[in-house]
């Protein structure tokens, strides 16, 4: 037990705690600014951690990333601008709640279930880190292919409109993902000789355009009139929470488990977790027709999921030094820098550091509740600003956010193009969310597909030969085929009236 006590003692210094608190506040701010991701918050922290001891350095990263993932929900709910990609899956749902005057309720639920999700991910990290990382290590291109396809299949059914238009949106996203040099052959594709396009289309400016700028155009069309709903205050948040917790515990638990499992997989992080969980929530819901109208159920499940994924992503990072997502990829660099080389030996030589890391995880997620509530309350005040003033300001943020991704005007151009595209798509009832997911997952899908085809000499059977791949493949095909089967059955009933 000595190691656990030593680990906790490492954290309980005022300077360590202050560092963690400041990093949390920093994460809240960066996560809440659309266009700046949790990954970017962590990247901005790296130079600062050079001057720190190992434990505060790692602590700063943990608390900063946890806050940033939650904080992404704030602008997502209030302005339909996902602060981080991890919030994009349920942006529309949260925004619909805001339009009904329930912004406080949506944000309150986001804080509570984010914190609980983070704690669940931490719990799994603590008890099963070595075991689970071993399973994830078995993943090859076949498994990744199915995983990406499963994510895309979910995207089509996330939307409330026509699945056909969802698919068109998805294919547009996949096309966008194929622009650039990054493909199995390393050939510049669809770049039209433009050097900026060689590096591909960055999905963050694209996302800002599709979600935020299109919303600015849409509200400008109607003269940016104010909504005639009053935002209902949450009152005593703790009172409402008990009820939420009782009502939505199955969704919460499912989100936690899905999120942690996806987080553990290398390369798949909080973003994909949120998408898959939102789709699952709708699939299993007793009232799927309420989705899209500002319904808490899906929000609870996916916000539980993305924060749980964060803890899960640390499992392969700590045990094998394999990043579970882009955040842990940066963290691994810092771990090496601080002499905490990730790997099984870390558990042998430095057990107190491991326990300190676990303890910081718990602290960060508990601290999220008061900090997050304060930020959410401050954020809701934004809604009292008239929309004729808010919209131009959001546009300015869109421009800066898109620029800040690579510090280049290229990002602003992408944002603009996708802003117009998003506006036109929504005018035609084509949902934009599947397009975003297509851009995000396109590269992984292509790479794993082409690699697998080369490995199996062009035989599709190769995709089912490995046990995990086979299982994932069957699940994916079921997800894709069940709606088709339902449609066929419906047709048959219509042609043969009983």
């Amino acid at each position, binding site marked *: 037990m000595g190691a656990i006590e030593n680990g906790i003692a490492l954290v309980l210094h005022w300077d360590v705690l202050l560092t963690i608190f400041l990093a949390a506040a920093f994460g809240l701010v*960066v996560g809440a600014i659309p266009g*700046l991701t949790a990954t970017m918050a962590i990247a*901005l922290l790296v130079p600062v951690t050079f001057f720190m001891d190992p434990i505060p350095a790692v602590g700063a990263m943990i608390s900063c990333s946890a806050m940033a993932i939650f904080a992404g929900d704030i602008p997502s709910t209030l302005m339909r601008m996902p602060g981080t990609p991890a919030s994009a899956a349920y942006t529309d749902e949260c925004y619909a709640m805001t339009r009904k005057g329930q912004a406080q309720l949506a944000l309150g639920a986001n804080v509570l279930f984010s914190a609980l999700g983070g704690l669940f991910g931490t719990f799994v990290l603590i008890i099963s880190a070595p075991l689970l990382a071993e399973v994830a290590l078995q993943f090859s291109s076949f498994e990744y292919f199915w995983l990406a396809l499963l994510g895309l299949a979910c995207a089509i059914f996330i939307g409330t409109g026509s699945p*056909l*238009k969802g*698919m*068109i949106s998805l*294919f*547009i996203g*996949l*096309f966008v993902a*194929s622009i650039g040099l990054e*493909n*199995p*052959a*390393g*050939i510049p*594709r*669809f770049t039209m000789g433009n050097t900026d396009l060689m590096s591909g289309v960055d999905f963050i400016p694209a996302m800002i355009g599709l979600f935020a*700028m299109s919303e*600015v*155009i849409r509200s*400008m*069309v*109607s*003269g*940016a009139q104010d909504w005639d709903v009053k935002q209902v205050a949450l009152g005593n948040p703790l009172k409402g929470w008990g009820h939420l917790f009782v009502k939505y515990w199955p969704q919460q638990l499912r989100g936690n488990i899905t999120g942690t499992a996806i987080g553990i997989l290398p390369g798949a992080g909080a973003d994909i977790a949120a998408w898959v969980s939102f789709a699952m929530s709708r699939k299993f819901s007793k009232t799927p027709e309420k989705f899209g109208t500002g319904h808490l159920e899906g929000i609870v499940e996916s916000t539980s999921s993305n924060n749980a994924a964060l803890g899960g992503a640390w499992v392969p990072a700590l045990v094998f030094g394999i990043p579970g997502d882009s955040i842990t990829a940066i963290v691994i660099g810092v771990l090496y820098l601080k002499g905490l080389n990730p790997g099984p030996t870390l558990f042998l030589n430095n057990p107190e550091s491991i326990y300190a890391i676990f303890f910081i995880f718990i602290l960060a997620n508990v601290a999220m509740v008061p900090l997050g509530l304060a930020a959410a309350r401050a954020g809701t005040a934004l809604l009292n600003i008239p929309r*004729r*003033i808010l*919209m*131009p*300001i959001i*546009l*300015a*943020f*869109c*421009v*800066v956010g898109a*620029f*800040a991704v690579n*510090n280049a*005007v290229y990002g*602003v*151009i992408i*944002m*603009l193009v996708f*802003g*117009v595209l998003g*506006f036109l798509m929504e*005018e*035609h009832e084509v949902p934009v969310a599947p397009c975003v997911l297509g851009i995000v997952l*396109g590269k992984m*899908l*292509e790479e794993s*597909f*082409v690699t697998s*085809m*080369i490995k199996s000499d*062009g035989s599709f059977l190769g995709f089912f030969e490995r046990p995990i791949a086979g299982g994932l493949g069957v699940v994916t095909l079921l997800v894709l085929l069940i709606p088709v089967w339902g449609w066929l059955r419906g047709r048959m009933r219509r042609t043969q009236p009983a």
Partner: protein
Amino acid sequence: MRVNDLILAIMVIVGGVALAAAASRLPPIPGQAYGAEVFPLLTAVGLILCGFALGAQALRSGAGPAIALGWARERAALMRAAAPVAAVIAYMLLAPRLGFVLATALMTGGLFVLLRVRVVVAIPLAIVVAVITYYSFAYGLRVPLPRGLVEGWL
């Protein structure tokens, strides 16, 4: 403003065919059956299939008028729709010359006025927004925003 699903379907099919044509011109990897063209070709096939399905659906259920103008009948609404796009383009042209603060103040200020915010409010507000954004991004987050005359004083 929208076109009906039949026209949308034709646009999707044309896009898919164009993508397929462009993809099939990509050079193969020597000695490899699967190269850069595989994935865009699959995407193109997907688009074309979706286009046909959407077109069939539209034909069955009656496509409605080819173009529904809706809000676009109103000239002021059309102008307001074009305004954010024009504002961003203007920003990109002006920022390298005037610097971030002036270009942003012009962009937001112009939109404020278009949305009928009173000028006495619009101008100071646009300047405050530009300055605060500049401070938080250029100093707080070290984003190298374009510098001009005003930024030298800040």
